[in-house]
């Protein structure tokens, strides 16, 4: 079994991403770690879009706040905020494909150094050419900046950041940055640039659980939280 590193918690990966999204942005958050980003942007001037057909999605709803007619794209009950709006699914994806989302943050099973990523079909699940695509392919081609949030390696230490994806891809050449428990990596025409590492780790540690070659930024920092 490969060596594994713990790195930072999922909540802190989400915090790091929240720090990367400037005020005045429209953003869409996928299922998993991306959803946690919403916990860090209360009070920020960031408008979240939900594929179900809502802009300015508020915090999660609990108890008496829960309204069965008000969910986010992960089917969690949410709340309205001043300035929220509702619309049809076709309009939701018109604004996504139409380039209105400044940022999309999605999970992934694999990311490759050419900016491809895979997130909808695991060959071992043996579902052939079928899988839960949901809104991922539309967000991938439509968002101005596509960020991937995920654990750096599998639970057994196998790399998920690869030279080329081996799983069916969600989109080609679209990923701008990868945020993991171990590192922040930028995808550039030259290759993967290691920008930040988790406290206590070296660039060699991160490379040891990354299949693709990492170019270490001369200005390498600790993950900025």
């Amino acid at each position, binding site marked *: 079994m490969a060596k594994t590193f713990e790195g930072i918690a999922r909540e802190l990966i989400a915090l790091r991403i929240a720090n990367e999204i400037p005020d005045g942005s429209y953003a869409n958050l996928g299922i998993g770690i991306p959803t946690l980003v919403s916990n860090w942007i209360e009070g920020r001037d960031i408008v979240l879009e939900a594929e*179900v*057909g*809502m802009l300015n999605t508020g915090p999660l709803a609990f108890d008496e706040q829960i309204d069965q007619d008000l969910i986010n794209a992960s*089917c969690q009950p949410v709340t309205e905020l001043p300035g929220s709006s509702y619309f049809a*699914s076709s309009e939701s*994806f018109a604004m996504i494909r139409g380039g209105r989302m400044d940022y999309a943050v999605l999970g992934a099973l694999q990311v490759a150094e050419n900016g491809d990523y895979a997130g909808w079909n695991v060959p071992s699940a043996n579902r052939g*050419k079928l899988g839960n695509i949901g809104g991922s392919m539309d967000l991938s081609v439509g968002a101005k900046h596509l960020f991937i949030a995920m654990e750096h390696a599998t639970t057994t230490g196998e790399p998920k950041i690869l030279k080329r994806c081996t799983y069916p891809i969600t989109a080609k050449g679209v990923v701008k940055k990868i945020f993991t428990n171990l590192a922040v990596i930028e995808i550039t025409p030259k290759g993967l640039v290691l920008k930040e590492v988790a406290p206590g780790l070296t660039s060699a540690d991160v490379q040891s659980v990354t299949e693709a070659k990492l170019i270490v930024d001369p200005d390498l920092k600790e993950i900025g939280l």
Partner: protein
Amino acid sequence: MDKVFPSLEEAIKDIPDGATVGFTGFFTCGNPIFLTRALAKHGAKNLTIVVMQLGVGNEEINDLLKNGQVKKAICNYPFYRSFSRRSLFEELLRAGKVECDLYPMGTFAEKLRAAGAGIPAFYTPTGAGTLIAEGKEARVFEGKECLLETALPLDYGFVHAWKADRAGNVVFRKTARNYNPDVARAAKITIVEAENIVEAGEIDPDLVHLPGVYVTRVVKVERPTINVTIEAPAK
């Protein structure tokens, strides 16, 4: 024009075997559960169902599957979120008892919108270079590879509304709107189950979400009680 029907049974009784029926709803939200239950009782077979997802928080669609009424599902989210759990739909699929056409969510919605807008086909960048591009015409526009996708017309569309007037003008509530306007526009015959029915003139024309021209029939239903969760109930 009075589009109100006296009962769910009356409103769906002409649905023939082999029909293509569209269902609104996003996970647990805005599903036309009363019309779907009525369709399970009605028993039309060999149906092509057009629905976002299968099995997750949607027992009514499961009833159609259990009854063997479904030949094919056209969807964008066919399985449970977990890779290890299998829904009834997945079991039927693996047994070769149903077929499945899969599209990305935005393409799925646009296929419905296009059908309602008289657009037979369109190009979209979504899915280019992926498995779903196989067998589809690809062309480059403005430097982006795009796929040719066709409209998805429905014989019947099932819609869940918060409020409708007798002329078929409809208002939805919050995110229960989701696919409703798209399913309604794509269908030859659109059947609306409405939690509230009012007289024509009682909905401010400026606040109509779906104009009555897209609505064929309206039926009054109770406001359902929905458990907002993505996990299927424990058996």
